């Protein structure tokens, strides 16, 4: 408790929309996150790299209020917050696009766009208004969807991802968390998403944390890179100061070290 004022001073950089300080999370015997410190500047695109099981998704789920950390704190726009729920985080402008996209296959594109933010007239859904707004907004963002009436089950992976991102941005998200938006996507599909992120970057009012595996794509679009290994952030560099080569070397070296240790103990 006494250390709090000091930390406030170190956290004083005024243009950070989000700071994560000393966050830790365990699941039973498994420690997912040990001591995470991370910051996100206004309008910045931060690439979060790391192997499977490094804790990236857990970190995202904590920032978006889906899970609560065991210790540590989140500071949003200079205010320390304890996120109680996804709704609470959303009210602060934090929204996540999960790996599974949280889209409902059976519902139409526009119902998915407005899920949990439906427009209503009395007790009834205002379908026409949602339909038209979804159409207008997707066109505006340059997302090519033939009809917003069709169930999302009938769309391609890239289109589904684009709709999930558009949904978050449309709901006035200021901090957008993208969990592997390029996973399992073809070149053309990935281009749709990268263009979308680039557009958002140009608008400047949305800050983005993006999890990805393809170092080339990440370096191309992100301003800064954080590398997460075994529940800790081991590298924090601007994209221009690092390279695919360096990132590869770090990750491979880490793998070799682990392998040697295992062999030695065996």
């Amino acid at each position, binding site marked *: 408790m006494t250390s709090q004022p000091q930390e406030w001073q170190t956290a004083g950089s005024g243009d950070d929309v989000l700071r994560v300080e000393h966050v830790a999370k365990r699941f039973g015997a498994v420690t997912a996150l040990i001591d995470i410190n991370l910051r996100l500047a206004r309008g910045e695109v931060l690439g979060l790299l790391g192997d499977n099981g490094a804790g990236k998704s857990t970190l995202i789920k904590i920032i978006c209020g889906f899970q609560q950390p065991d210790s540590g704190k989140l500071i949003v726009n200079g205010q320390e917050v304890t996120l109680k729920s996804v709704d609470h985080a959303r009210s602060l402008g934090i929204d996540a696009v999960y790996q599974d996209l*949280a889209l409902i296959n059976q*519902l139409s594109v526009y119902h998915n766009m407005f*899920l949990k933010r439906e427009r209503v007239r009395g007790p*009834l859904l205002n379908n026409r208004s949602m339909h038209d707004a979804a159409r207008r907004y997707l066109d505006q963002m340059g997302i090519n969807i033939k009809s917003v009436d069709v169930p999302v089950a009938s769309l391609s992976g890239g289109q589904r991802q684009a709709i999930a991102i558009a949904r978050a941005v449309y709901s006035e998200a200021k901090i957008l968390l993208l969990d592997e938006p390029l996973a399992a996507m073809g070149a053309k599909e990935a281009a749709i998403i990268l263009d979308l992120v680039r557009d958002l970057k140009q608008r400047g009012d949305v800050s983005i944390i993006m999890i990805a595996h393809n170092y080339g794509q990440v370096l191309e679009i992100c301003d800064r890179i954080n590398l997460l290994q075994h529940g800790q952030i081991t590298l924090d560099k601007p994209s221009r100061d690092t390279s695919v080569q360096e990132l590869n070397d770090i990750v491979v070296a880490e793998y070799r070290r682990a392998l040697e240790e295992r062999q030695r103990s065996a």
Partner: protein
Amino acid sequence: MSETTKATGKLIGEPGGGPGAGNGTVDILRHWLGVFARQREATILVVAVALLLYFSLNNTSSFVSNANFSNLFSAIAAPIAIIAIGEVLLLISGEIDLSVGFIFTFSPFVMFFLTTYYGVPALLAIICSLIFGLLVGFINGFITVTLGVPSFITTLGTGFILLGMALTMSHAQPKTIPPATVTLGKYIGTAAWSQFIWAVILVAIFHVVLTRTRWGLYTISTGGNQLGAREAGINVGRIKYGNFMITGVLGAFVGLQSAFYNNTIDPLAGGYQPMFYAVTAAVIGGTAMLGGSGTILGAFLGAIALATLIDGFNIQGINANAIPIVFGVAILLAMIANVQLARVRERGRA
């Protein structure tokens, strides 16, 4: 030739494009046929109408009469349809209620005990019966959602408990309708067609709830993608609790209707049969058991189709023992069509 096909194709795709074109009426007809075929309820509507026509033409004298139609629609179809409303909501949200038939059994006893032994006024006793259904629904929700028992097992257990309670408390003897409740009973189930009118009103209300309100959207989301719904911020537990409670109240209401209609409170009324009929109506009406999709209107038409078969076979003097075979075949055909159509759609996507 190819040009005309192209033009027609366009007209089908664009509503209101019919007039002015050379072959106007045919195109309009084709357009509406297309719209009709896209409705999930279309198949079961055709089946129900065909069955009604078949029995009307073959057994005109006995089938086509006010007395028989009121029996078919009100006494047979309505209870199935009302219970099916609840089952459709639960099936869409990925659950099922096997106990609703025993809520049906027990709810009139709540009214009976309250009026006979505690002098509770009729209206209040009836409301308490409905609240009893609500409570059982809440308990089903608690055990399923909060304690994590699959609803199939939860409601199997609560159903047995309710049956045992009805049998012990009534000493397995039917009770007469308390005189104080007779007047209200007329509106609930005694008067001819009253059950059917209630069924139509309830189906209309819940059809709107399912297709045009947040509750319906969240019910579909809960069964369609439970994790995704939760990530989107939907309280899926609350949706399931709610649908169990809706089903409980509807079951209690049907129990009262049946008691008033038959003018007796029978511990052997209800049970598994009306519940399984309701699930059958839901399935042949187009509700998948996989969660995420279903239609209350379809279940209503399914209930009418089932009731027509029961009533029609009865009139034809066909051995009633054969009816379950027809139902079994109908369920399997409906389900096979459902699953295969989904596969075709999946393939079309890939």
